[in-house]
């Protein structure tokens, strides 16, 4: 491959990731942090050059005739496949529903692809399928097409699910990460990091007793309620993999603004904080599956918070900070003791510490 890099263009596109650095894909390339961003920008965006992809939003915004559609896809590879508060099935439905909702769209139709490992008990598959249908019903979407593949035992991890979805964008809304504007308020719909910690609590080798459950939920209803109060929401994102910190960093980068948050304002369960202390994790980087971040004109913040708190999935919504002009692309946080620190993009996976 070194030869190809040094100029043998006849054999196809040059691998844009220097071979001396990562000759193979690392787990962290899929971790949602800086390495993932690097892979997406250097590998995928260099080849897939469509205007709809370039903003790297949660979904693509497409004009079809008179309609504005949102189109999104996501794959689910979670272990274990059953965890407190959910299964890989409802997660796969809610995840794509939420990606569409974050585009300001009303999710309509979903596709699903199953990659199943030989040997998966039928009973487990049934549980997953039932959970998917229940989640689809709750979100008001219909599963309309699908595909099934089975791979040899040992070549998969029980079950992987892909879902894609399309939705109709609400008239008069223009939600885009680049629209974050200095002065805007930053809202979160509830407590962070529940999902990541609930899943970790049942992971093999790390089991710890907790009452925590995943927050997996369809957010389209909450988004409807918010758009009803304020159609001019600038940005919506669901802080899944990589957590709140990665999402805010992506918004700051897309909009070339700074984001300043207050540690004390961020809702977080004591139990989650305790688990994070024990594991050496920062909850700002832990995944959520039923929360959204909204960046909104500050004049609308109070009305939006009231509307969010009136919805079952937004009862603990909070104003956590503001968009600021400088430093552009950087997220800063006022700590509990009153000092300021950078909230950086995670480099790779969050790894439990030694001591």
């Amino acid at each position: 491959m070194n030869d190809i890099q040094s100029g043998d263009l006849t054999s196809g596109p040059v691998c844009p990731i220097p071979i001396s650095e990562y000759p193979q894909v690392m787990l962290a390339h899929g971790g949602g942090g800086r390495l993932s961003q690097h892979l997406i920008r250097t590998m995928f965006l260099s080849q897939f050059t469509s205007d709809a992809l370039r903003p790297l939003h949660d979904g693509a915004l497409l004009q079809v005739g008179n309609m504005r559609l949102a189109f999104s896809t996501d794959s689910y590879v979670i272990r274990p496949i059953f965890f407190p508060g959910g299964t890989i099935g409802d997660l796969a439905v809610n995840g794509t529903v939420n990606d569409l909702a974050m585009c300001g769209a009303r999710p309509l139709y979903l596709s699903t692809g199953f990659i199943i490992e030989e040997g998966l008990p039928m009973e487990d598959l049934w549980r997953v399928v039932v959970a998917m249908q229940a989640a689809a019903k709750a979100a008001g979407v219909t599963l309309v097409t699908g595909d099934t593949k089975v791979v040899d035992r040992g070549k998969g991890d029980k079950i992987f699910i892909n879902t894609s979805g399309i939705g109709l964008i609400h008239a008069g809304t223009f939600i885009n990460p680049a629209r974050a504007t200095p002065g805007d308020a930053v809202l979160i719909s509830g407590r962070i990091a529940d999902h990541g910690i609930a899943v970790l609590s049942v992971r093999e080798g790390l089991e710890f007793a907790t009452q925590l459950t995943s927050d997996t939920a369809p957010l389209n209803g909450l988004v409807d309620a918010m758009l009803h109060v304020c159609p001019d929401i600038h940005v919506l994102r669901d802080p899944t993999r990589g957590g709140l910190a990665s999402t805010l960093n992506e918004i700051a980068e897309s909009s070339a603004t700074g984001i300043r948050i207050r540690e004390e304002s961020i809702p977080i369960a004591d139990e989650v904080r305790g688990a994070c202390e024990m594991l050496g994790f920062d909850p700002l980087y832990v995944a959520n599956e039923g929360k959204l971040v909204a960046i909104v004109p500050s004049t609308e913040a109070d009305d939006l918070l009231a509307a969010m708190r009136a919805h079952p999935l937004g009862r603990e919504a909070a104003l956590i900070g503001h968009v600021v002009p400088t430093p552009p692309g950087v997220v800063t946080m006022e700590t509990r003791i009153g000092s300021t620190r950078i909230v950086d993009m995670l480099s790779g996976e969050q790894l439990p510490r030694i001591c």
Partner: protein
Amino acid sequence: MRYIDEYRDREAARKVSSMIRATTTRPWTLMEICGGQTHTIVKYGLEALLPEEITLIHGPGCPVCVTPLELIDKAIAIASRADVIFTSFGDMLRVPGSTKDLLSVKAGGGDVRIVYSPLDAVTLARQHPDKKVVFFAVGFETTAPPNAMAVFQAKKLGVTNFSILCSHVLVPPAIQAILSSPSNHVQGFLAAGHVCTVMGYEEYIPLAERFQVPIVVTGFEPVDILQGIAMTITQLEEGRHEVENQYVRSVRRDGNVPAKNLIGEVFETTDRKWRGIGEIPRSGYRLSPEYEVFDAERIFDVSGINAQESPLCIAGAILQGLKKPHNCSAFGKECSPEHPLGAPMVSSEGACAAYYHYGRLGSSPGTR
């Protein structure tokens, strides 16, 4: 959350900060030993709450950072073998060896697994009798008891396919080495609260007397560290040099006696090489003769592995407190958490990583 919130309290931090300002009359240089403390100092921007006269130097207390390059290379060689399941705490997997890290071994097909306790590695060994299960036993006195327990259990249960690659290091000999160095300018120490939770603090008393430096056993929350600094400064201003304990909610004078007994059963003191610093006499643990059949360096022939550090990396000067991370010409350029040249940029407790993640705000705390 009890024992956490009161030590991250704005008003408490302000009070201790004012007390430090009122006490300090001249320049003092302190070293916090533990990387966890460095992390808190930079993460919370504590240097901004201190008077100009106080300089904090970040000590060598990051186990990941001081593990010698050649030991990482040995770990990589062992982990690459088809007959091995190599287990480690997460931090160690990203530390660069001479040519690659353990995560790359994993991506290349090696069976490298993160475990959360060395006892999990013993369990793995029992589940996979056809494999040799190796645990990467690094750390200070804090991780010595669980690592000793794993070996003790393996022996008791007759698990013969388990071994450890051991690189344990000890805090007091490192303090002695720093204080004995002609270039030393550290006048007081914050000792590591978790190390002392295991070991107690009696062994620090002769050091404080011999070198006439105050040593204050200190916790890890921002208010803990400010209190530790206040106690050290008070001693310096009053001309005292004693061992004091700020972290009373966790540390007793004689430490955790059953844990210490277990360490004494399984390990013995040995000379140990520290990455970036060199060899320090009697500064580490190795398995005692009765347990040496569990020593991975004996089981796998890795004695021929030697390694040279990157000439760009000034980890040695940073780990000795002679330079700060942002004084390094490679900081944030050739060396970043994605492409670390040295271990202090890898570990969450490494000084370089702490500066990189939290301290790049221009005039902000942490870049002073």
